[in-house]
């Protein structure tokens, strides 16, 4: 009865647009859902470092190298920041990382695709960071205070990433025939996985209703996906790139770019672990973790000997 009253108060607060803070009462479901979402998001930032990190040593100019390094570093910072946001809900980073390494936690499917040419670096910044921005702009209005604030801060950096990515794309799209080929190929490979980033159709999204009611999310997957397509198609056309969707057409009445059906079999297959790079990404994360074990132990031992609090224990 007590809980029922508290739940009513909680929902009323959310209705009034108040933010929920870590010390406030919240239903267990709300806490669980947030931990799931925020940790998935944190894992995605960290796993996302791998496909892009793949091109740092091969960046075609020193400036591009600096920009890419700084971008991947930003993603590590986002990971750190999001793990801290998740920790406000009473879990610790170590526990969440274990879940990822044991394959119990998810991360964004998009990072299970490979980066094959330099054009992928441009296209990832443009499409993947672009899709992340659409999602995160919505999450910045989330009812949970720490998540909402994390999103506001992170979104600013994602906007840089997107701009820098699009600049690479635009440069290559007006470059040599080989560059044009590379960049169109990258768009062909990344377009559909980018649309999949928004998740299943609303009708197939089991968590959506609850998340919307509690304003963890404020827009549905399909609404966000449509918004992304509307923003992105003109950007592709502006630099002469083709979107690999024969069904794509503009609807002047709704103002929407209508698009073809996503390959949901592929979507579910990759989520369940059978994408081109799932195993490789997890292997890389586990390797870094395992090979770092003696380093973390040494830091803890040193801190214990010298009576300091270890930041890596």
């Amino acid at each position, binding site marked *: 009865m007590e809980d029922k009253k508290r739940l009513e108060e909680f929902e009323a607060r959310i209705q009034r647009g108040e933010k929920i803070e870590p010390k406030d009462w919240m239903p267990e479901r709300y806490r669980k859902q947030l931990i799931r979402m925020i940790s998935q998001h944190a894992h995605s930032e*960290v796993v996302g*470092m*791998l496909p892009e*990190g793949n091109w*740092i*040593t*091969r*960046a*075609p*100019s*020193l*400036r*591009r*190298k*600096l920009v890419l*390094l*700084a971008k*991947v*570093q930003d993603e*590590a*910072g986002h*990971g*750190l920041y999001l*793990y801290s946001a998740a920790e406000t809900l009473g879990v610790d980073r170590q526990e969440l990382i274990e879940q990822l390494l044991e394959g119990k936690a998810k991360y964004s499917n998009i990072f299970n695709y490979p980066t094959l040419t*330099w054009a992928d670096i441009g296209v990832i910044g443009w499409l993947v960071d672009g899709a992340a921005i659409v999602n995160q702009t919505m999450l910045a209005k989330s009812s949970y205070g720490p998540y909402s604030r994390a999103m506001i801060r992170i979104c600013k950096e994602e906007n840089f990433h997107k701009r820098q990515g699009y600049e*690479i794309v635009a*440069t*290559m799209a007006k*470059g*040599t025939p*080989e*560059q044009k080929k590379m960049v169109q190929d990258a768009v062909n490979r990344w377009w559909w996985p980018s649309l999949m980033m928004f998740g299943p159709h609303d009708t197939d999204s089991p968590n959506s209703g609850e998340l919307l009611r509690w304003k963890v999310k404020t827009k549905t997957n399909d609404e966000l996906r449509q918004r992304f397509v509307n923003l992105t198609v003109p950007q592709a056309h502006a630099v002469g790139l083709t979107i690999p969707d024969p069904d794509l057409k503009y609807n002047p009445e709704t103002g929407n770019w209508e698009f073809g059906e996503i390959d949901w079999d592929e979507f579910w297959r990759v989520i369940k672990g059978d994408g081109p790079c799932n195993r490789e990404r997890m292997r*890389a994360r586990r*390797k*870094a973790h395992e*090979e*770092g*074990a*003696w*380093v*973390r*132990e*040494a*830091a803890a*031992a*040193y*801190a214990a*000997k010298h009576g300091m609090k270890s*930041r*890596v224990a």
Partner: protein
Amino acid sequence: MKLDKQTQSDLFDYLLRLGDDRLILGHRVSEWCGHGPILEEDIALSNIALDLIGQSINFLSLAGKVEGQGRTEDDLAYHRDALDFKNLMLVEQPNGDFGFTMVRQFLFDAYSLLLMEALQASELKELAAIAGKALKEVRYHLRHSSQWVLRLGDGTEESHRRVQNALDDLWMYTREMFESDEVEQRLVQKGIAVDSTSLKSGWESMVFQILKQATLEIPGEQGYYSSGSRQGIHTEHLGYILADMQFLPRAYPDAKW
């Protein structure tokens, strides 16, 4: 800059040494991005790589100006082969484990700190300014690498063994840092460059102190010391670094990126 022909060519060479050390070490450190032992180190190592590559851009771009043939820092980074790279062999050594990377970094940082400090007094104002800016970053790098040498040296048995091995393996690449040659000496005469031999005792006192504190043994006299990288002699590893780094601009010489 009004320089006589000899000074111009010496200075170009000297700036390549400064730029290449930082470019190649930055490349190595950047290989860690996404693979560090903890997320905080991914961030710290990316930062260090960013600083080093940033410093190399400054030195190489000045080298291009001194040379006066219109070559940019990218031309110099991407269109020279191993024989024309002037970096120390120390910095091109593969990363190994995290301890190996930190020892390599520590040995270089201590040297770089002394060098940048001294270069601030260079008669060549552009060079003094670049060194002054780099110095702030190098101070942070040295603090970071020293802390890790301490933690790992005086951490667990395993970590002690690993960093001691790293130190023993890298020691033969340290003497080169303090080798001078005619190019450098002529620039020292003009008040432009720093005499590398003058940095040795300062480096030793800094490095020995941290190693002792880290309970590590200072390696004894080695049977072999690398020599000649300032003249373009390298280990087997540089070729692979360049193959990676230079691939795109070399494969597509007409492309702009």
